[in-house]
């Protein structure tokens, strides 16, 4: 299982970085979200599969429970990454209306 997660995390990191470096701001935002998901996946791999039974159930006698902290962290991290993604898309939307372009090379009035 962890090999699968390692490969998946690696691929998502690659895709995310590639997307992030594009000139199109919407695609860059997508890359940002992909990167966050890759980190979330890494965190999931950190502890979710150590156990044999779910945490906080009556099956605890049957074996080692999986780590509930990781799941809690993941939920928070997903909410935060989704929130940041929404905020970025909102900003990009306003800037697309204002500059009539989502090309980052045309959003360049700040100088000095």
């Amino acid at each position, binding site marked *: 299982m962890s090999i699968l997660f390692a490969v998946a995390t690696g691929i998502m990191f690659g895709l995310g970085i590639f997307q*992030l470096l594009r000139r199109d*701001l919407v695609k*860059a935002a997508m890359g*940002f979200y992909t*990167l*966050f998901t890759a*980190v979330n996946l*890494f*965190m999931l791999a*950190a*502890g979710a599969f150590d156990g044999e039974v779910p945490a906080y159930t009556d099956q605890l006698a049957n074996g080692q429970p999986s780590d509930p*902290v*990781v799941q809690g*962290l993941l939920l*928070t*991290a997903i909410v*935060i990454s989704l*929130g*940041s993604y929404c*905020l*970025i898309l909102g*900003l*990009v939307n*306003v*800037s697309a209306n*204002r500059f009539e372009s989502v090309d980052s090379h045309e*959003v*360049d*009035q*700040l100088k*000095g």
Partner: protein
Amino acid sequence: MAGAENPWVLGPIIIPLFGAALCLLLSQNNRLQRIVALIAGLAACLASIVVLLANLEAGSVGVQIYRLGGWATPFGIVLVADKLAALFCVMGSIVVAAGLLYCLQCHDKCLEYPVFMPAFLCMGAGLSGSFYTGDIFTFFVFLELMVMSSVVMVAVADSSLGLEAAIKYVFISGMGSLLLLLGIAALYTTFGTLTMAQIAQAFSTGERPLLAVPAALMFIIAFLIKSAVVPFHFWQPDFHTTAPTPVHGVLSSVVVKVGIYGIIRNTSSYLVQEGDLIRTILIVLGLVGIFFGGLTALRTWNAKRMLAYSTLGQVGFILVAIGWGSQLAIVAAIIYIFNHAFIKSGLLMLTGVIASHNAKHSADLKDLAGSGKGLKFISVLYLVGGLALAGVPPFNGFMSKVALVRSGAGVESWIVLGLVVAGGLLTMIYMTRTWQWIFQQEPPEAEDTGHAPAHAPHKSDSPLAPALLIAACVLLGIFAGPLVTLSEDTAAQIASPEIYACSVLAQMVESGMSLPEGSYDCTGGMEISAAPTALPVLVMEVPGR
């Protein structure tokens, strides 16, 4: 020795959050919103001061702790206010309260946006939270709260460039958060805990599992991005310059210090063994920052942007002090951080006041030339702030500079010290240059507009908040004793990381849980191992006599 349970620790976090909720409910009434925000800010400030006083009263190892939800330490989130965190939180909440006071009399249009004041309070809550938290994941959450609310405030700024700066910042800062999260995940995989004290315990055994050091380095890089240290600074001048004045005051003076707090916390409690390498890096980056920030500030034609670049330079001084790493140098760094927060926020708000005198609210030096000619009071304040930033005697900046130079002499790194002093002169040059431009020049004749609205009913911002901040600078300069003593105690506490770790974990030890072998022994009573050396700041010892 257990840390003292103290529910006041919750205050600086929960009061602004509660105020933010209240402000959202009052979104119909902008005036009331601002007043509620100010009250919340002042209450948070009070709470943080109470925590600091409780810390002082409890003597050398008085660490104030609050366990959220009553969960025992390794299972729940713990808020820890040791002297470092308490001091930083007092600094942060005072500057945030000053920013809210400025908001009361600020005429920027963006302040009427219903979400602005709640976002300001959330930024304050995130700031206090990231200082107080004793849990790396909660640190990340508070950091994101702070970043996101500041992005909202800059994106709606009056300056149309704010949006672009906000996009730039949200991407770069997002990368920083990503690295931080990756580091947190790696540390959790390695040690199976998120509590800083337990991680410090695990690191103190001297063992280095595979992922531990890369994780800690990711932390450091994330902090360097957050505090805009030179190779990672590209977002900072744009983002800070376009921010509305009260927000700029807070961003440029205390929000950049969160990263520095993270660096101090990390190098002092986890990475004690890797310290030498990290310190060398910090000295190099700090020196580059001093000169880059100083020289670009010299050639910038915008008063707010100049101060933003100046922050790059000042952060450089702090990094050099942390890089020297002797106890005296840490004292210098803490004094510097504390004083710089007041000077820089005061100067920025003053610049905002001056800029609000022209109709465009522009801080461009060409627009500002001579605009302060009649404003004697503001002129004096700006000069005092500028001299304090440059480190001229009666003001608090002098104290920071003296402590810095003294600690540099203490570690005998003469070349770095020479460069630091030379860099300090740049501050003097760019501050006096700007002061002359704004206050000493003849105002340009209004030749192009014959019907110039010379006495249009234009309201300018009130200089009350910056006046209070600059007054604090003068007082901190004249009565520097308490701050220096406090910084010495703080540095002594930083020098013995077992105090932090054991205060948090004592309850766990008493309940019979075992600690990793070879780590700090938390069973006995604690003393500060090295007696804090008295700091003769004002008595410059001549070497070799």
